[in-house]
């Protein structure tokens, strides 16, 4: 065989590939040696002894034996790689995705203050998560039947999650949540969801809330609204979780339509109502100061959302691919329908319309992406673009609240549409998890007797009530203690100078 550069490359790929596939498998030649050989002495390059097919057969056999002996899905490095990647993709949605998206939509005097809200929330939520947030959302609280609150017993300080203090080792998978990835990966992945949810609310109270009030509101909101809701929908024995105890009253929320978007959207509306309008709202033009930031931010949201949705498969299998495809097609459709509606009604398709449509599509497909087919995803997304366009253009003006950056119009309305659409377009056999985890549910779905749409509406209602009441209580507490709003003078000066003593755009040199 002639040693052409192409052959060398192929040999290199094969040898490196083998070490990626399975650590247990004997590796013919270590990758660094092959690299060195390729650069120095061509004839010494280690030629692969086995073909790709032979290697794959061996890997599959090893994986199957391990899975069979464990009686469940075995730890899988490929799954862990994808889930760690998904985790960072979800963080990318907030930092810098959402920070840029919102930062560009405000006036220039508020750009830093708005970005600061995202980064401060990321810090606050992460610290709480490490101490007790994960325990409340995903612990069982010592009681098998607590469907709302995970409590302060199991998983406190991430013990037994990222580090096991009893054995002094790193814990492996937790079969209750994700059997093929380390428990720590699951907890970190979920943390990124907890970060973006309160950060989404910033869009409603933008340009007028005190930084201190924002920080306290976000902290209390995490405890009173987010963590209980996450426990209900995703936690062990959660009342809306279909994955435990053969629960037939659960909701289908693949990646967080209720937990993330309805909850944050409704809270956003409450903050807009409690804070009141921005000074001179309606009299003075308040156009976005830098739509190019918003464009970059929205595109990062689209990319990051693949981690959010496809990552919610919690493995790198076929379900992840389905969720990935659904996410993309719904988003693409919505990115077309919103500006199309503008074009017809207002005469021009706008860039802000296109990126807002994309976000609306992402929100709407979030609960559905693991339960519907790609053609349904196109319809869900297309309608999301139109529904959210109507909500932000007409509903807001009709009801006269100042949801500054349309957090309710896009996340609240889009989230509610997505939850309902999940019921409308539900494909009973799309998600293999149902048959594996809940046989009575799979049977009821197969028989067509399961009231999917009613249960979706029930979950929507629970999320709306919990978030509205919880947010109202917190906002009242903050209002009468430290106060919610900036003084008029500070609001006119902007968040950047009044809250942080900085300016986003400075000087001439």
């Amino acid at each position, binding site marked *: 065989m002639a040693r052409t550069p192409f052959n060398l490359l192929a040999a290199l790929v094969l040898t490196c590939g083998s070490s990626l596939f399975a650590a247990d498998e004997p590796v013919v030649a270590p990758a660094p040696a092959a690299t060195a050989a390729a650069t120095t002495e061509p004839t010494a390059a280690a030629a692969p002894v086995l073909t790709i097919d032979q290697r794959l057969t061996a890997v599959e056999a090893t994986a199957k034996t391990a899975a069979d002996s464990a009686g469940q899905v075995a730890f899988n490095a490929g799954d862990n790689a994808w889930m760690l990647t998904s985790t960072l993709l979800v963080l990318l949605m907030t930092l810098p995705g959402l920070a840029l998206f919102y930062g560009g939509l405000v006036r220039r005097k508020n750009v830093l203050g708005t970005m600061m809200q995202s980064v401060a929330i990321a810090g606050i939520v992460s610290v709480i998560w490490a101490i007790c947030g994960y325990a409340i959302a995903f612990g069982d609280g010592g009681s098998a039947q607590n469907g709302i609150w995970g409590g302060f017993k199991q998983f406190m300080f991430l013990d037994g999650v990222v580090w096991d203090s009893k054995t002094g080792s790193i814990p492996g998978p937790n079969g209750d949540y994700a059997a093929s990835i380390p428990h720590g990966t699951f907890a970190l992945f979920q943390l990124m969801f907890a970060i973006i949810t309160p950060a989404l609310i910033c869009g409603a109270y933008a340009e007028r809330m005190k930084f201190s009030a924002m920080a306290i509101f976000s902290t209390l909101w995490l405890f009173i609204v987010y963590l209980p809701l996450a426990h209900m929908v995703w936690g062990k024995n959660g009342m809306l979780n279909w994955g435990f105890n053969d629960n037939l009253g659960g909701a289908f929320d693949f990646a967080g339509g209720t937990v993330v978007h309805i909850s944050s959207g409704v809270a956003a509306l409450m903050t807009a109502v409690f804070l009141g309008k921005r000074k001179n709202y309606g009299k003075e*033009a308040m*156009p976005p100061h830098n739509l190019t930031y918003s464009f970059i931010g929205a595109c990062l949201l689209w990319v990051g959302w693949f981690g959010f949705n496809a990552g919610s498969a919690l493995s790198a299998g076929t379900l992840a691919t389905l969720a990935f495809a659904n996410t993309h097609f719904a988003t693409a459709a919505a990115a077309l329908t919103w500006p199309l509606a*503008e074009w017809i009604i207002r005469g*021009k398709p*706008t860039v*802000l319309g296109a990126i807002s449509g994309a976000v609306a599509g992402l929100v709407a497909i979030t609960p559905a992406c693991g339960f519907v087919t790609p053609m349904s995803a196109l319809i869900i997304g297309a309608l999301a673009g139109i529904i959210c*366009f109507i909500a*932000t*253009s007409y509903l807001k*003006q009709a009801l006269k609240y100042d949801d500054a950056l349309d957090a309710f119009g896009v996340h609240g309305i889009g989230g509610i549409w997505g939850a309902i659409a999940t019921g409308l377009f539900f494909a009973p056999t799309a998600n293999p998890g149902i048959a594996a985890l809940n046989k009575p549910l799979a049977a009821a779905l197969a028989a067509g007797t399961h009231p999917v749409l009613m249960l979706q509406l029930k979950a929507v209602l629970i999320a709306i009530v919990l978030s509205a009441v919880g947010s109202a209580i917190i906002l009242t507490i903050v209002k009468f203690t430290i106060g919610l709003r900036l003084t008029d003078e500070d609001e006119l000066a902007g968040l950047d100078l009044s809250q942080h003593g900085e300016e986003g755009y400075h000087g001439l040199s």
Partner: protein
Amino acid sequence: MKMIEAIIQPSKLEAVKEALNEVEVVRLTISDVQGFGRQKGHTEIYRGHEYTVNLLRKVKLQIAVNDEFVEPTVQAIIKAGRTGEEGKVGDGKIFIMPLEDCIRIRTGERGSEAI
């Protein structure tokens, strides 16, 4: 010596610079300005919300010239700064002011030598 200040349409900047170059006026300062005059604003729509923008973007030229260059400069700006044959409301204005002195920082030269 005169200081000529002209407010022009941003879209005419390149044409005006070229026209000035033809009459050998090659030193000028340009700034981004906003303002309004007889030209009405336009509307911008963000997520269905219309804003009337009445502070319009213009470009301001500042040109210091010796007296014999005043008229060619003015004519060049008029010729290149007009929209279409007739011109349009919003094409801007030219202001001419007496210039008391001019100093080149590098050499310290003064007066028309320094321009």
